[in-house]
């Protein structure tokens, strides 16, 4: 039961970062077909290439929703390289509660979506670069 800390429940009931960022440079979407969790993440970069804002839309359980909300907050100020290196321990430490094996997918879905967004943005950049020389 420790999984449902006040912090997790509070993030689930009233997430701070649940909104659409229409102008975001990075975005990605993924679902967990087993439970129907469904998230889109938005990341807005500043002129120095660091994250100035992040947000999410979608629905999920308390664990995945809290994870998405905390991850958005934690993104701010980070560079793309730093985002690229975030790992699952980072997501777990944000949640700060023990996550059982059966709920790992819930806790990690937002991180997966964030990585998707980062990698597809970097891939896009690479393509553009290649375009410059091609």
């Amino acid at each position, binding site marked *: 039961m420790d*999984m449902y800390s006040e912090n997790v*429940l509070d993030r*689930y009931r*009233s997430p701070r970062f649940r909104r659409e960022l229409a102008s975001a440079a990075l975005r990605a979407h993924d679902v967990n077909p087993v*439970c*129907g969790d469904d998230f889109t993440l938005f990341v807005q970069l500043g002129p120095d290439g660091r994250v100035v804002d992040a947000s999410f839309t979608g*629905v999920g359980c308390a*664990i995945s929703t809290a994870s998405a909300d905390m991850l958005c907050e934690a993104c701010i100020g980070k560079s793309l390289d730093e985002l690229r290196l975030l790992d699952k321990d980072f997501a777990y430490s944000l949640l700060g509660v023990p996550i059982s094996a059966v709920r790992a997918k*819930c806790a990690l879905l937002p991180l997966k979506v964030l990585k998707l967004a980062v990698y597809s943005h970097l891939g896009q950049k690479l393509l553009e670069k290649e375009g410059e020389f091609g």
Partner: protein
Amino acid sequence: MVGLIDVPRVRADFPILSRKLPNGKSLVYLDNAATTQKPVQVIEALSDYYRSYNANAHRGLHALSAEATDAYESARKKAAAFIGASARETVFTRGTTESLNLIAYSWALANLRKGDVIVLSQMEHHSNIVPWQFVAGQTGAVLRFIPITPEGRLDLASLDSLLSCAKLVSVTHASNVLGTINDVAAISRRAHEAGALVVVDAAQSAPHLPVDVSSLGCDFLAFSSHKMLGPMGVGVLWGKRELLDSMRPFNYGGEMIREVSFESSTFVEPPLKFEAGTGNVGDAIAFGVALDYLSEIGGLGAVREHEKQLLALMLESLDSLGAVVFGPSDVHERAGVVSFNLPGVHGHDVASVLDGEGVAIRSGHHCAMPLMRALGVAATARASPYVYNSLDEVDYFIASLKKVKRVFGSGGL
């Protein structure tokens, strides 16, 4: 008047029900639609088979092989009698999924052509959808789905038009999500008038209510041992004799042949024609013991009455908790499955909090993603009682749901 189940006596036969969970709680097992627990009689029958008379059935002249063959064939007779059928028409498979695939491969691929119609319903388990999608892809047959009403019943108003050009109708007898018991006899009548064969997925009905193939009027029927106190890995396909006779084998190999030359082979009669290779003898025998057990505790009539009591309490309590319950509200129309959602709480969170209290339920799409879409939900929580569950356990389940509501707060969600 059918007697009810003697729950304390039944519980004493299930060793697992007295175990403690890692968090020290007692187990309240309400995930019986996924699989049931096994009584000590079944566990011992399986172990006794391997201790005392393990041998390859149908293949030896020695004493052990004769004993194994007798026990295996006697289990087949029990399975047949359980659904009012003859042993000759009763094939052992690995379970409902394999039974349905057997029909798909051995009957449908050989008999369906481009433009033929297969009628399913919107409340099917994936195992009664995906094989037919494969058949449709291979043959050019077309799938049509009987819609459901907002209360979660099959909407049979459009059945006759769905049945035009239909060659096969495959429907579930009882829904593993909604609990709805479908009027298979009526569907069979109308399907036969339209010239279609009828397959019944009895995975969720055979464990919970009396099932009789002749009153259902179907052509094939499939169910699984593990959902009715028996071991995993064994199930039944019943089919009408003339159909089984006319069908080609499913797998090819030993056991199912009459004579083999280098060039060609002839096959034995059903049911062995469909049981190539060494069968799951021990599990089939233990399944027979599970069927004996079900009749010893009062038979399926008593099981049904017992479950109606549990369901009535569950439905009434869920309603007063403000839960959204899917499927018909009348216990006479539903088998032992209750899917619900607590507003503002995801099914996974319901299941996790309940798990913390020792209550095992399931949450998710229950292998019925198209149905979830039709219901407009991503997932549901599902509680499914069986013979060993008591009214006290239902009360404890409801008390645990109150805890979910407390944890998640009732306001603002």
